[in-house]
């Protein structure tokens, strides 16, 4: 198909003498357009940083830390939100990582090879579902279903600080939000881990099997050590996604602003993203720039997490 195009191109190009001008013109336009697009990416990110900073300035200037007089404090406002965001994302990862690694191993090493592609597609479907639908599903369907589990955890494992406190129905607590977040980051962690596991050197695996290792022993001694860096990087990518996710938290969590560790209690936590989404409609002036300030904090947080993830991938990834 493509060779035919080249042949079609051959007949006019030597015969036309006026083409040299047009050719140089076309080349210049194309080169300028593509270099310009590259520069536009630079400009866009610079604009993101600049606009977020300048628009959050009024809040910083008016804050207690800066002026000493105003009635609100940046740290007091932002820290509980950061705490809630990080806690929700961390719990989501604790749930999602073991399951994702299991799925990745299942697809790469346990499932029949013919089924593997189809199963991978099923997991990708999870990633295709819009986050607002997850929020709806979590809020309407999942929250009542989780109630017996929470009551059980609270009654029998209440001596662990995480499960302490007094959960009340409906269970719009941090734990429910984290469960939905876990479902949302699952496909990301699975996809990256699966890629890494599939790149395990074939000969090493076969050598382990030839020595009489069972399938699990092969995985433990060959596949997992090889894929460790990839799994860590995948988890960091998932963490970046979980930190920035809005809808699942907004639609499930009943907000609060404390440093409580009791994830089963309702109305104790909130995340940066959900806080912005719920308050932006009515906010203006200093309130708005306070929200933009928390957005900047979130941006920096996810940027650092993602940078660490890329660094790990670049350092230990098999593709380097």
């Amino acid at each position, binding site marked *: 198909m493509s060779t035919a195009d080249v042949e079609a191109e051959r007949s006019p190009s030597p015969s036309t003498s006026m083409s040299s001008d047009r050719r140089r013109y076309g080349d210049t336009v194309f080169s300028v357009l593509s270099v310009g697009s590259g520069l536009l990416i630079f400009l866009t990110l610079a604009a*993101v940083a600049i606009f977020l900073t300048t628009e959050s300035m009024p809040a910083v200037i008016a804050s207690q830390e800066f002026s000493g007089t105003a009635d609100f404090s940046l740290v007091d406002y932002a820290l509980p939100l950061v705490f809630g965001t990080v806690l929700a994302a961390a719990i989501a990862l604790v749930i999602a990582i073991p399951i994702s690694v299991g799925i990745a191993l299942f697809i790469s090493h346990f499932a029949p090879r013919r089924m593997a592609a189809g199963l991978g597609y099923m997991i990708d479907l*999870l990633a295709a579902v819009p986050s607002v639908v997850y929020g*709806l599903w979590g809020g309407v369907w999942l929250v009542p279903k989780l109630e017996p589990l929470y009551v059980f955890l609270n009654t029998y494992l209440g001596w662990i600080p995480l499960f302490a406190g007094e959960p009340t129905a409906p269970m719009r607590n941090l734990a429910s939000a984290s469960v939905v977040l876990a479902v949302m980051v699952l496909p990301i962690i699975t996809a990256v881990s699966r890629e890494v596991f599939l790149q395990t050197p074939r000969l090493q695996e076969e050598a382990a099997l030839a020595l009489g290792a069972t399938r699990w022993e092969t995985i433990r001694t060959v596949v997992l050590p090889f894929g460790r860096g990839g799994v860590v990087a995948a988890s960091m990518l998932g963490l970046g996604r979980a930190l920035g996710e809005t809808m699942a938290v907004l639609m499930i969590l009943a907000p609060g602003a404390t440093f409580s560790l009791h994830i089963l209690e309702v109305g104790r936590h909130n995340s940066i993203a959900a806080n912005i989404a719920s308050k932006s409609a009515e906010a203006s002036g200093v309130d708005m720039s306070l929200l933009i300030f928390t957005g900047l904090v979130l941006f920096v947080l996810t940027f650092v997490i993602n940078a660490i993830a890329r660094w790990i991938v670049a350092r230990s990834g098999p593709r380097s």
Partner: protein
Amino acid sequence: MSTTAPAPSRPTSSSAPRRLAEERRLPWYHLVFTGLAGLLVAVAALAIFDALSVTSAILLGFVLHLLFGWGYSLLREGPRWATDRLMTLLVIGAFAISMFPLVSLLWSVIARGLTRVLAAKPNILSFWTTDMSGIIGGADAGGVTHAIIGTLLITLWASLISIPVGLFTAIFLVEYADQGWKRTLGKGVTFLVDVMTGIPSIVAGLFGLALFISFMPDQSVRMGIMGAVALSLLMIPTVVRNSEEMLRLVPMDLREASYALGVPKWLTIVKVVLRTAIAGLTTGITLAIARVIGETAPLLLTVGMVTSLNWNMFDGRMATLPTFINQQYRNGNANCMADSVTNPINHEVYACSITTNIDRAWAAAFTLIVIVMVLNLIARLISHYFSPKLSR
């Protein structure tokens, strides 16, 4: 350990052949027996404690199966194979548990959403052909035309911004960033695209908002184009990534053949590189659109919400499917004083339903998922049927 390893120094001892036999693996159907045993015990235990349900039986049965299977295998096959069995079961369980949300989510969306779509009055398509103007209280009516049009318009504009920029950036990275300062720029762009991939969607929304409210006199301005700009911030990195991957797959031979024939570089790119990669590019772009069309958070911040159709991207708020779902969900259960509600202005009478808001949210979610799945399907079909056969 000492009981499992068949020591080569002891083949003469009388117990050795039995040990060797123990090490042999049992056929797979023994797993079915232990599985059934686990399930039966689970059902019995749950029945005693009066907590029997399909979900709890399956969950407890699985946990018991882990225990039974492991113990059985330990007795019959030895600890190494027992661990292997246990891990196999755990890995299968991990996959099954991940299917659980997918199946239940799709089921809820179809059961509650499709039902509401089909139950729409006066005809089956009414949910998709009416909007929310004049719908008050618990009125069991209304639809999502305005939201569908809004979603499509905003996504279209986001695509109009992102696809040229993303495509040309990918062309720059593959075709131009090979030496000198362009190489340095290329490395920077690759890094920044990575950074952009990680931007939380709410931050993209804040950017769209901050960008416009710093120019506009009215701080509460919300319009479609703001949403399109915010979405394009999320869409550009996906387009760049997917397109770059596809362009790199085009063999160097094709480009060199074209140059050898005296074809200028830009014409080579247009007629050879892009044409060879067109299927992959279309797939990648369709997937990028599918990803962006369901974004909610940026639109919550930038386009607001209305109850009727708005075609103008540059004036006034717009409704979109994701924000419509969120809004209806937030409205929660409606108040029904009587069996019907009457609009005081145009005196139309509607049936009253307590769950009308949630039902509309499910129906809109069904609509959105159908759109996303169709886009994904189109992408798959394109890449399946139109990708060039490079090997032949």
